[in-house]
């Protein structure tokens, strides 16, 4: 079986590489240069593990796209969702039935903001691989070159949080921190074995306090918010002026953003700074996919809606630094109420295990000020909305036929503190089962050490 998987891997890697060399800009010279560039030099080798045709029956199904079915049926086979419907949906022969009575089904949970692997456990200094804090703009670094696949945090996110996909970002020391990588939450010996096939790259940017503190503290630009913007703008202009005759990794990332191939994931707390970034994006000709840690999004929900930018936020973090001082628990509800895109994120190896609970808290904060948000909409914050902002909404994030069978069976309402994932499938393969002690990943690091294979 391993040989078979490796063969598949090789052929697909070639196919991906071929695909990715066909893109470029309208400029003839840069098109020529671009065709010479392999845009996928570290291709995904992930292939779904074997799965059985499965019928989840009798559960409350949140489809991730805002739909809800009581006593629903979800069919998946060959790694894809085959059908979703009510109790009357016919189950083809050969499907294994899983009784979901009294339980809930959601798409796999997606965390748009994680540092698993680039700040792994144990958090020793030898593992500090998330910030290339030696230059305020490092678009040339790629998070996937830092991610340690043996981070035990991946397994906690799977078993306790139902996380099936996640975006690993560089840290926020730099204005431009580098490329992100989107992963399937599948244990692997290599990072390539975790990479989400077909996911676009993101580029991490950061507003505000962190870059100016880190570099101001080194006596170099930027040391102010105006310095932040100036360095950003000049970097964009320089990238645009690069004729591409000599390969430059930083420029390639920035040009990928300008071409719409790489999505901007922008750490930004304050509303006024987000508004400035939106203008900078227009000035330079790119789009922001999501503002992360956007604790003040509620102040400009209208602007964010108009610009179709998601806000990736915590439920209730606030006040831990100056730029988070105006965080309020109603942030998500106000955004939803204004029709803007909400994503609940973690930025935390513990929080990623409870995104469902964070969403429930944000929902409840809205209810207390008269904003009723249906459960099925709230689940979208953790699934389809995250997928949209990561550019993988055509592939996962909802239980639509043809999409990846990334599915969580919860032992109760996922918006209750008392519920936990019971089973998690990734591309139709059962990767976690609370009832089977062996059906949970144990990283190399944990072997032979206290707590190996324990419930976590």
């Amino acid at each position, binding site marked *: 079986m391993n040989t078979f998987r490796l063969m598949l891997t090789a052929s697909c890697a070639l196919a991906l590489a071929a695909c990715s060399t066909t893109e470029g800009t309208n400029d003839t010279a840069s098109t020529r240069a671009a065709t010479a560039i392999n845009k996928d030099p570290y291709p995904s080798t992930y292939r779904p593990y074997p799965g059985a045709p499965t019928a989840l029956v009798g559960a409350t199904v949140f489809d991730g796209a805002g739909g809800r079915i009581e006593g629903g049926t979800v069919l998946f086979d060959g790694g894809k969702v085959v059908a979703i419907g009510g109790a009357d949906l016919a189950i083809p022969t050969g499907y294994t039935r899983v009784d979901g009575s009294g339980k809930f089904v959601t798409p796999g949970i997606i965390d748009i903001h994680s540092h698993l692997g680039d700040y792994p456990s144990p958090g020793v200094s030898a593992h500090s691989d998330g910030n290339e804090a030696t230059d305020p703009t490092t678009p040339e670094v790629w998070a996937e070159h830092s991610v340690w696949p043996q981070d035990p945090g991946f397994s906690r996110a799977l078993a306790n949080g139902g996380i099936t996909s996640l975006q690993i970002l560089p840290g926020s020391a730099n204005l431009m921190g580098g490329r992100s990588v989107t992963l399937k939450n599948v244990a692997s010996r290599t990072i390539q074995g975790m990479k989400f096939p077909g996911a676009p790259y993101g580029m991490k940017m950061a507003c505000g306090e962190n870059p100016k503190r880190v570099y101001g503290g080194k006596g170099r630009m930027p040391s102010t918010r105006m310095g932040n913007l100036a360095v950003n703008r000049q970097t964009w202009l320089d990238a645009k002026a690069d004729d591409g005759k000599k390969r430059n990794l930083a420029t390639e990332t920035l040009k990928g953003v300008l071409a719409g191939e790489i999505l901007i994931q922008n750490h930004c707390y304050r509303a006024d700074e987000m508004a400035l970034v939106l203008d900078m994006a227009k000035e330079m000709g790119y789009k922001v996919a999501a503002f992360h840690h956007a604790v003040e999004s509620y102040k400009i929900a209208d602007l964010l809606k108009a610009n179709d930018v998601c806000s990736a936020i915590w439920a209730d973090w606030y006040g831990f630094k100056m730029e988070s001082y105006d965080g309020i628990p109603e942030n998500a509800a106000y955004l939803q109420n204004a029709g803007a895109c909400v994503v609940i994120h973690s930025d935390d190896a513990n929080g990623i*295990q409870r995104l469902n609970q964070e969403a429930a808290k944000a929902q409840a904060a809205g209810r207390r000020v008269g904003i009723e948000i249906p459960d099925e909409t709230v689940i979208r914050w953790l699934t389809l909305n995250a997928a949209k902002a990561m550019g993988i909404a055509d592939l996962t994030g909802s239980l639509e036929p043809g999409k990846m069978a990334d599915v969580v069976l919860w032992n109760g309402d996922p*918006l209750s503190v008392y519920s936990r994932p019971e089973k998690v499938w990734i591309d139709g393969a059962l990767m976690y089962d609370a009832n089977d002690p062996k059906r949970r990943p144990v990283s190399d690091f944990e072997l032979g050490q206290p707590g190996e294979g324990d419930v976590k």
Partner: protein
Amino acid sequence: MSARLLIGTALLALSTPLAAQDFAITNATVATGDGSDPVVGGTVVVRGGKVVAAGSGVAVPAGVQAIDGTGKWVTPGVFAAVSDLGLADSEGVSESNDTSARGSPFGAALDVSPALNPASQHVAVAREAGITRASVYSSPTGSIFGGQGAIVDLGADGNMVVRPRAFQIVTLGEAGARIAGGSRVSAHALLRNALRESRQYGSDSRIVGGGRNAPLETGDDIPVDPRLVDNSAERDDVLLTRFDAAALVPVVNGSQPLYVVVERASDIRSVLALRGEFPRLKLVLLGASEGWMVASDIAAADVPVIADPVDDLPSSFEQLAATQSNVGRMVRAGVKVALGRLIGTTGEQPKNLMQFAGNLVSLTRVPGATGLSWGEAFAAISSIPAEIAGFGDRFGVLKAGAAGDLVVWDGDPLEVSSAAERVFIDGVEQPRGSHQKRLGDRYRDLDESDLPKAYDW
């Protein structure tokens, strides 16, 4: 002039002490915090700032105002063990942050009580979330000793301190080793030297409770401050300042608990062994991620634990065996465990205590995991931390004679969708409102058609 007068009047109104009310809440789901299951249709009576009765079959005395609690839950106020409430306006704003003192010449002598600010937004947020009492500590950074923590209330008044210098804190394990010069070996030497110096100093200086001098019982919640005892005792040892040595006298004589930050199983054993050399130490373990591995030892030593509720990552080499089942396993082994150490305002802010307690209940439905019953989980954030703080039967529990600290919730308090609706401390209903709340009010809509948002207040 008139405007100033108006403002002055308003400030006066705000600063007027709120009066304790006599009241009863009836027909609510009542959880008393003592570990028992909630009772449906229960009543709680509060008079003169204290609980008179709680539970089912409780009659409302004549003349006591009855509040209909139908559909509500009533519990004692939550106790946030080992917090930094009142010590920072924003942790990341160093100018506002008094949670640690890396550059201080003192360690054990530090006393958080004069630095506490009841007007901190974090106090208001925690109070509105249902937390009424807390222990507050100063984080060890410059010395392995953090200094003396306080027991506080979160009432919206000028005084947070219930008991100053209520405990001393020392960090061992990885963090203590770094502070001590680079190894656990050094940290343990420093600790022993400090305790021996202070024992000698207490004796020589005739500080009450020091050496052969009998401890002085003041009969109230304000312990004697041995640092301030004038004396002319000579000292040979020079590692501790006079102030630090004096501060540790109550630790050595067992009148002030010593909270020890420790995670690894072997480190926990070493801490428990300290009592072989210093028999009167009143130890409390903080953290204890690997406590489940030595749970029977901890139970046999009768040492309580204030645990990080849901740590399950090997986030350091001293926490390799961390699991969310840690608390449940220790409780099953007979250890007294409170949840705590939630500091700051991010993922582990004090107001998440209820959520984390709920998570421990959820473990009872996970095969192979060890969780807590609802009553046990709620006790771990109410009566048990109060007992460890030295306020058993007074805080964190609804029983006759306990402080009138109670919370009316709109649902199960451990459920993430629930919230505190009314909070009473010493029978005084607490005002609602905070910076967060005002922002929420202002931005409920984004209408600026008449005036900027800055005029909406």
